[in-house]
């Protein structure tokens, strides 16, 4: 058991035992560390002003990801390296990091309030792009020179993980826009920021300072093998690393809130001001992070982030990958999980319609008992699911569309990126000789849960796959859904859209 949070702030080790477990990383930085370069623009993951970079060991390796510090809970940093805008410039010479320099030269800041967030979003990309074998050798040399012996597996792992993240040598404007889609700027109109990103990331090379930061991570970060348990501010926090331990903890504490990526739960804290007395963090549970291809399908572990699972989505169907590319933005996808998206049971969660159409099976566990069910059966009513107290999602098994099956998914939202859906729809049509064998249609945003469209499916099944059939199915949708007016869109808009 471990009873304090240990992480690296830049190059400095930190140990914290008494912090409120629901304190956000942003609050910690601004209030405790008084590192005030990181800004709060919204406290709900939408604006990116609070973007920081987190380095973590995965599969024995290290990788860097941009996250929104405003909705990340401090204890989830345990075993990780936290980099903020203050870490980038060389502390001795004051030399700016290439990402910072490019922002200055491209006139990428006006009021400057969004700037630290943009810098960090681009910095995460730069770190991953810049990681060449040379750097890693340098890091290894540097570590070898230092007094303490680091675990060599970390250094090797570092090399391994860096190679795993393919970043174009010179990302184009679209690629850069994708990296910063989670950052809002009200002043510049983005063009100069994209210019800066393109410039800074072309042929990115690590700076002297980057190497120092890598080396610190390689030296200090080690994968924790025991459960982290905290008790402070009248709250308790558990972070197991094994699935069976998680099962035990949840059985003992069925009233605990499960936290995975905190991209939903974080907002309960910052916006709804809910007091979460007991938290079980599942982001360190190795088994739940698995993403594996087997036979004609994929297993996606509940705690796999969107970023981790992207290869699976891409392999399942390009529409699915595109749907996920438009889910939140990089910072949200780097934390948010499939398990969270499902268990949160929002009627507008983006992955359930696609998963349901693909015929995914949901796997659950309580104590030693496991069970599974078609995903659509999990959703019982508005934010109501079949999840029992003490039970958790372990993952989803998703069959790949066969050769005789067509799949398509669409998302309609007010903004292209970083916006919740007005409607999200997914279809898998099995055809045999021009006749629809089986149609699976699912929608988000049309009812109080992600929901299939039995009437439209019936209108398709057994009929020729042509325009007449399709029109009939479109009419039938009116029997499947009775959408409501809300701030996302009006009912009058939703039904025709969905057709």
């Amino acid at each position: 058991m471990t009873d304090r949070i240990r992480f690296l702030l830049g190059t400095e080790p930190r140990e914290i035992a008494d912090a409120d477990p629901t304190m956000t990383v942003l609050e910690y930085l601004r209030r405790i560390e008084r590192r005030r370069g990181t800004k709060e623009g919204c406290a709900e993951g939408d604006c990116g002003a609070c973007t920081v970079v987190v380095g973590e060991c995965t599969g024995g390796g290290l990788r860097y990801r941009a996250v929104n510090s405003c909705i990340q809970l401090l204890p989830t940093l345990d075993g990780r390296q936290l980099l903020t805008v203050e870490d980038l410039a060389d502390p001795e010479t004051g030399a700016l990091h290439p990402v910072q320099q490019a922002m200055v030269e491209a006139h990428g800041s006006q009021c400057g309030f969004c700037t630290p967030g943009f810098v960090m979003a681009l910095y995460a990309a730069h770190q991953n792009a810049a990681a060449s074998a040379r750097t890693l050798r340098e890091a290894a040399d540097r570590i070898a020179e230092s007094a303490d012996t680091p675990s060599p597996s970390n250094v090797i792992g570092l090399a391994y993980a860096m190679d795993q993240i393919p970043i174009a040598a010179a990302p184009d404007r679209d690629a850069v826009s994708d990296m910063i889609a989670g950052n809002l700027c009200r002043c510049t109109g983005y063009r100069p920021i994209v210019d800066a990103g393109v410039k800074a990331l072309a042929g990115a090379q690590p700076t002297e300072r980057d190497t120092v930061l890598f080396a610190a991570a390689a030296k200090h970060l080690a994968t924790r093998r025991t459960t982290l348990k905290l008790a402070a501010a009248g709250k308790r926090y558990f972070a197991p690393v094994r699935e069976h331990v998680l099962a035990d903890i949840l059985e003992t504490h069925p009233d605990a809130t499960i936290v995975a990526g905190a991209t939903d739960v974080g907002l309960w804290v910052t916006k709804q001001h809910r007091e979460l007395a007991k938290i079980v963090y599942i982001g360190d549970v190795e088994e739940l992070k698995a993403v594996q291809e087997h036979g004609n399908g994929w297993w996606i572990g509940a705690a796999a982030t969107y970023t981790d699972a992207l290869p699976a989505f891409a392999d399942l169907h390009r529409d699915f990958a595109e749907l996920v590319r438009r889910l939140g933005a990089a910072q949200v996808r780097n934390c948010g999980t499939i398990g969270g998206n499902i268990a949160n049971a929002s009627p507008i969660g983006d992955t359930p319609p696609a998963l349901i159409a693909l015929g995914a099976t949901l796997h659950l566990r309580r104590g030693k008992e496991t069970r599974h069910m078609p995903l659509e059966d999990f959703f019982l009513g508005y934010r109501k699911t079949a999840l029992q107290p003490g039970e958790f999602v372990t993952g989803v098994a998703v069959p790949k569309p066969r050769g005789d099956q067509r799949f398509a998914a669409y998302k309609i939202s007010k903004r292209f990126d970083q916006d919740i859906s007005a409607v999200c729809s997914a279809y898998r049509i099995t055809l045999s000789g021009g006749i629809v064998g089986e149609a699976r249609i699912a929608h988000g945003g049309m009812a109080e849960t992600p929901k299939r469209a039995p009437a439209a499916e019936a209108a398709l099944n057994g009929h020729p796959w042509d325009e007449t059939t399709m029109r009939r199915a479109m009419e039938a949708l009116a029997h499947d859904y009775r959408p409501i007016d809300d701030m996302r869109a009006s009912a009058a808009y939703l039904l025709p859209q969905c057709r």
Partner: protein
Amino acid sequence: MSRAKGHVREALAHDSAVKHVRGTAVYADDIVEPEGALEAYVAMSREAHGRIRRLDVSAVAADPAAAVVLTARDVPGVNDVGPVLPGDPIFADGLVEYAGQSLFAVAARSVAEARRAASKAIVEYETLPAILTIEQALAAKSFLLPTEKLRRGDPDRALAMAPHRLGGRLEIGGQDHFYLEGQVAFAIPGEDGDMLIYSSTQHPSEVQHLAARALGRRDAAITVEVRRMGGGFGGKETQAALFAVIAALAADRTKRPVKLRLDRDDDMIMTGKRHDFVIRYEVGFDADGRILGLKLELAGRCGMSPDLSGPVNDRALFHADNAYFLSDVEVVSHRLKTNTVSNTAFRGFGGPQGMMAIEHVIDEIARHLGRDAYEIRRTNLYGTTTRNVTPYGQTIDDNILPELLDDLAKSADYAGRRRQVEAFNAKSPVLKRGLALTPVKFGISFTNTMLNQAGALVHVYTDGSVHLNHGGTEMGQGLFVKVAQVVASEFGIDLDRVKITATNTGKVPNTSATAASSGSDLNGMAAQTAARAIKKRMAAVAAAALGVAPEALVFADNKIAAGGHALEFGEVAKKAWMARISLSATGYYRGRSSISPMARRRPRCWSTR
């Protein structure tokens, strides 16, 4: 020409660019709080319109975390932060007029504690009928300010005689400013009831005056400082005052520093937005699309108080011509009172809404005639020698729009693109493309002439470095560096010798808001005036030392030189000091030629420089 670095017309990075990218630029919320500082939370009305039957904050006050609870009764001075006209209570007193209106405030060690304590209040309302939309307000004749009318010629007759006529209705929605840095203020009490307020505001002088009024102090007791804002966009022209004043009230009562920073959600609920409009029009035109007669009705939703709604709607009225000559025209502007948050300044200040109205009319004409809207725009443009007087009587000088548009249409290959768009649309049943080329005429300067003034304060130190201060505020537009460039050019010294300093009401008093596209012009001129005053004194010193006439001196390359002899700028500063000559000056500037059309109904509304 000077070879010193950073003069006017050089394209420079923002003065804080390096600090922005390093995270070292200090915003109001980043100032390190002194020991014992508190944070405040403002509780809001849930009702859009209602009488407060009961407001019991005793449980809030009893909360051990609460250092102070403030209600309307706890305001020692005037319980109102209306900028021009009253109507914006600091704390609701008996009546609430919008959902989100401030009821009371709590200060505690952290805003989370303050919020928790505030939730213990008991509030009971008698709900009153609420007017929320423009149409409801029009139907109820709920006018906040008198309706204004602008009329020229005989629009009724022109409409009656026009070969073509159209009429219709257009809705223009509101908009939140979404300055990335939300509303924030930090008040630090001093001795003798003094108060220093760090406020994220475009209008420090107004915050100062309103804080003084609320505290029942003299203006001189209050100092407001703004180094920078994380964006303003008009949303911090008047709206910052409420929060600065509440922070000051709490600081005054507790004798401890108090910060008030709004959560984004609260900010969106509590602060005013762009005015939304409903526009009705009737237009008469000929076969070429030339407008012969136009009647426009602009109905703006102002919310519950006047705030800046008068001038915002004036500007909508004065921009309803946009770039087009309207011979026979009537524009009616209704300023509607609704039970919604009080709408406020927002980039363009009503201008965009007025322009949207006429641009929509033009689009409708084009559709009706089956013509390209650009042709209709081109046809109706103001002329250079005839058809060049606005409905409010200002002659348009320097009208380059006709050539400019012709140039643009050519260089952008408007016609070619139009053909491409049409080809695409012919083939695409669902997705459609569009294309527009639209001129804009926009009035620079405040419509209220009085406000077109600015002050600056310049000191030269004996090492030749310069301290620059002026009344303009920095919100990302680069004003500070521009004004510094003016001063550096004037003195012929490197820009890095000019120290940019935070806007502070103790240095330059009684300033106007940084608004109306006037910041650089007004403050740049004021700073230039101050620099010139010092320059003249320094020239006298240098002339005596070099034995030349002052007029022969050139200030350049960090030197003051004449006839092959030169003195370092700093050297002359030192000599001046030793000769007991002041190296400090204030500068003042009043805008040249703007006269408020509403106030005087005379020609020439907008500044031409």
